[in-house]
């Protein structure tokens, strides 16, 4: 059984101007110790999807569908189980390390709080564990860092501290919401490799959210491509790149720079802008921007189909699939 199983997730926000359909019909699963990448541009619903799992959405959000973690119904947790679930089972790394640490508290204090609360560790034991954690995320001189304040560390270091905080209670599932977007390009790769290494070493499942298909290519087992709050294509990572089907995935791939491209190659941006989520879609949300659009795309929502009759676990929602190079 998968560690996390999300089925037909839909999130609707009620606003003054009527409902906004942020996420619809999203399904995916994460195996124990596996990594999954959720890829999409701004407004594709990828953050809302994980926020709904983490109970971080405002009260105006209405959640439908089911999410089961290890047999538990995530959306209807018993209050007693809730604390353990969010503090111990599942942990989250936020996008911006500049705002995810409290500027007036020492690193050590912030690292040990959660452990002392959830595991009732003594101050000494928690500090020893904190040093261990900083070592784990490869921060040099960990004992000294514990006495420092966040402003004394660089952005990359701070994100390492945030990751260490997330690992404090040995989570079985780590959710990283664009963990490198706010960092320098040179530091991004280090942080991503760190997350990848930690997942393998600690046998922890990882949900990596990003807008960059390149980021998840070498670091995930499965990829879910989202657009307009819906899953466009989902497949094992290798299969997704070998047999890209959905025109949107193709478009994402060709908008990413590649070091092996010949000099002077032009990147192709995706024309148009993301769909207005306040309108319940009656057709493929990507149709207005799609270069392979057909009349059928504009008349009905494309059903989710499987490639190779389901053998590879490759699914897509498109009426005019484009197999192979485009």
């Amino acid at each position, binding site marked *: 059984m998968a560690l996390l199983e999300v089925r037909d997730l839909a999130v609707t926000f009620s606003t003054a101007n009527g409902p906004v359909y942020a996420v619809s019909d999203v399904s995916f699963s994460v195996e124990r110790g596996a990594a999954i990448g959720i890829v999409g541009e701004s407004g594709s619903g990828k953050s809302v999807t994980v926020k709904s799992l983490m109970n971080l959405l405002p009260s105006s959000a209405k959640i439908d569908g089911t999410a089961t973690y290890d047999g538990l119904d995530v959306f209807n947790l018993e209050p007693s189980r809730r604390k353990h679930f969010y503090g111990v089972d599942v942990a989250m790394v936020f996008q911006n390390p500049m705002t995810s640490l409290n*500027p007036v508290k020492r690193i050590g204090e912030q690292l040990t709080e959660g452990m002392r609360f959830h595991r009732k560790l003594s101050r000494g034991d928690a500090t020893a564990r904190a040093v261990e954690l900083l070592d784990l995320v490869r921060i040099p001189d960990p004992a000294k860092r514990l006495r420092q304040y966040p402003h004394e560390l660089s952005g990359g270091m701070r994100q390492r501290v945030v990751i260490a905080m997330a690992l404090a209670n040995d989570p079985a599932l780590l959710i990283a919401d664009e963990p490198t977007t706010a960092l320098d390009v040179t*530091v991004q790769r280090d942080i991503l490799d760190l997350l990848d290494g930690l997942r393998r070493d600690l046998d922890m499942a990882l949900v990596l959210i990003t807008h960059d298909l390149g980021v998840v290519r070498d670091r995930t087992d499965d990829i879910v491509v989202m657009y307009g709050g819906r899953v466009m294509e989902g497949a094992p990572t290798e299969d997704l790149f070998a047999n890209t089907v959905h025109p949107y995935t193709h478009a994402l791939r060709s908008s990413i720079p590649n070091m092996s491209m010949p000099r002077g190659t032009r990147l192709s941006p995706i024309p148009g802008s993301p769909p207005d989520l306040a309108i319940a879609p009656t057709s493929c949300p990507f149709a207005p921007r799609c270069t392979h659009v057909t009349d059928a795309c504009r008349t009905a929502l494309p059903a989710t189909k499987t490639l190779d009759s389901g053998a590879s676990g490759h699914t897509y929602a498109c009426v005019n699939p484009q197999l192979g190079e485009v």
Partner: protein
Amino acid sequence: MADTHEPVTELEAVDAPPPPSIAKQLGLGFWLSSGFVALVVVLALLAPVLPLADPNETAIGGRLEGPRSGLWFGADSTGRDVLSLTIWGSRISLLVGFIAILIGFAVGGTVGIAAGYFRGVFDKIVSFVFVTLLSFPALILAILITTLLGRTVAWVSVSIGILAIAPVGRLARAQTLVFAEREFVTAARLLGASDRRILLKEILPNVVIPMSALALLGMGIAIVAEGTLAFLAISVEDGLSWGRQIQDAGSSARNLQNGPHAALFPIGVLFLTVLSLNYAGDRIREVFDAKELQL
């Protein structure tokens, strides 16, 4: 794709030179001005045990006698010792300033932080009350309270304190809004922290720094406000304060001409105290604002 990148090293300043200590960043001016305020406070506290002339005893010196050895600040128009008057007067001026700001912070700070954190209807009501308070003519309110409720230290402090609630509360609310949306608050909540714990451990320490700067500025303003009330003869009844002293010495043009020192000494001390409070508050704000920018 990513695998074709050259390996890059993490360009990080792991051991950047440590920034100068906060004490140093605050600068000489800060320490001089807080030193002066400390001196004034210590003298006020020690007034009963200092070898001072009785401030109410007349004919200690000659009428409007100038400063001389043993009568350092000179004497006023009834021959009272101006130094003794100034030190005894500081007690009520400082006390009223302190209590007023305490009231402003206890009420305004608490309500402001709660409004910024819980938002919703409560926030709307609080913000409306703050705006209403701000639009009230300050002097009229103070006159109303002191004449209706009595001219005691407590009521004078309350009347000035009420005026402090809205500005303090608005700053507290704004600062809380800044931090309540930060991810470390979300992270604390995810880890199971209660609202109480988040407010006290995560938000309050962040809000306290800009607030402490405002406290110093506000105390200066409150001392001046007490002086204004005293000058209008509606501050503490029969109490010695700087404002009262200035009013006594400055109400007659002739006295002011013949012995300006009787008014100038309390004015000078009042001025320096308020200036020092303002400067110290400003420095705190500047140094810690810069810290925030580095984040």
